[in-house]
């Protein structure tokens, strides 16, 4: 397994763990940006065949969107919302880290059971992708702020993107561009909604968005 791939894997794991364990919004946004950079270089490690121009285009699109545009949008949302720059968790940081480490082992176990082609590094990439998806879900569920929910959604998309790059090699270029565009539009609209939430409520705490419910308790 080549050294670039193992470097990618370790850096992805560390960035996911950093997302789970960090307490500041700025650090979380930078971690997501870092993941975007890593993902931009992933197609070159994985694919040995295939049109180079296509890989280049995908890598460029990913780099621009996930490495620059999304962090810029998120930072702008954070600054406009003008809230305390601390991630407010339901589950504490050390416990999140511990869950993350256990989940990482779990993802290794699950990935070993997938019927994968026997290329070296496939199992590792798949377990990495599953762990990234877990980190995304965990961030959405266990953090109060709306901004961290958007960050969690981006991390989830990153994990799915890794699976896409490794497994889905005959997705045409147009679809991959469409996927990137859709994610961009989603983040854009979420950013606008967060701005409205902050203007409306003076906070971006989704825990307090609980007016609509079925049974008045």
């Amino acid at each position: 397994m080549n050294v670039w791939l193992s470097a990618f894997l370790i850096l992805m794991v560390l960035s996911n763990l950093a997302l789970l364990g960090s307490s500041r919004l700025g650090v979380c946004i930078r971690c997501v940006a870092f993941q975007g950079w890593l993902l931009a270089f992933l197609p070159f490690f994985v694919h040995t065949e295939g049109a180079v121009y296509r890989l280049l285009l995908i890598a460029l699109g990913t780099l621009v969107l996930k490495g620059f545009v999304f962090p810029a949008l998120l930072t702008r949302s954070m600054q406009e919302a003008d809230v305390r720059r601390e991630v407010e968790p339901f589950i504490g940081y050390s416990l999140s880290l511990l869950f993350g480490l256990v989940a990482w082992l779990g993802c290794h176990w699950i990935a070993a059971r997938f019927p994968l082609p026997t290329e070296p590094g496939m199992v590792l990439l798949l377990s990495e992708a599953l762990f990234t998806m877990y980190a995304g879900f965990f961030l959405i569920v266990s953090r109060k702020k709306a901004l961290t929910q958007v960050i969690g959604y981006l991390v989830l998309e990153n994990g799915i993107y890794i699976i896409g790059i490794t497994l889905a090699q005959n997705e045409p270029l147009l679809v991959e561009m469409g996927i990137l565009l859709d994610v961009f539009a989603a983040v854009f609209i979420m950013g606008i909604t967060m701005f409205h939430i902050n203007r409306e409520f003076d906070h971006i705490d989704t825990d307090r968005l609980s007016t609509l419910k079925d049974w008045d308790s």
Partner: protein
Amino acid sequence: MILALFSILAALLFAPFLFGVINRTKALFAGRTGQPLLQMYYDLYKLGNKGVVYSHTISWVFRVYPVLALAGMLLVLLLLPQGGHVALLAGPGDLFALAYILALVRFFNVIAALDTGSSFEGMGASREVQFSALAEIAFLLGLCTLACVTGSYSLSGIYTQLSYSAWLAHGAVFLLIAIAFFIVFLAENARIPVDDPNTHLELTMIHEVMILDSSGPDLAFLHYASALKFWILGSLLIGLLFPIHTGYGLIDVAFAWLGLLVLAVSVGIVESIMARLRLLRVPQLLVSASVFSFVALIFLLR
């Protein structure tokens, strides 16, 4: 054998010099001239000539601790491989011996601090215990990973087998362990960002406060023992980062000393550019060191 004796002698002679290097680096960063490089030797000499003052509340623990600290460090020096050669008392499992002699010294440090009956030292003792408990995980996991890589349970066995070809094969793993070791090194030696060695404020003391009641030759022993601890943990780190084996024992040892100098300078730089972390954040830092070691271990094993 001769080489081992030679490096032990060098450790005994040059350990306080490293602290001088650190202080001089910090002074240069601050634009001052700073203390003389040999200042610590003068301090040790000065303290050795003074008399000891004991309070009424202490027991034998407090008297025994400085001697025990020095004895422990000397014992660990016998286990320490430096410059890629085998230590004097090398044997399988001696990495646990090293870890736990250091733990024994730390234990006596803590109970000697509690022995004085002052709540000030007690506060330092409780902080110290919390941080070392977390640092030990990172340290032992890192050593365990190294043992897995080289297949040997002896420190000497591990460090003689580390080389640049090992780095090429397991580069990412070694890098992670090196980062974890560096954080543990800073924590165990009471350096910024874990503890400020120059502070006089109660809020920020951890190690400083525990030796507040010591005086005279006792204090000299304690300072010397901390210098030796710096040398020991630094050698473990340098042995991992710069595993130079040229085949000539003397040149390897000289390179190890050079590495220690570089380490001292970098510690000085870290102390100059960073502030000490809030006490809430120190456990997070140590937990992340443990996470690095753990990730390295799992990465190796999968």
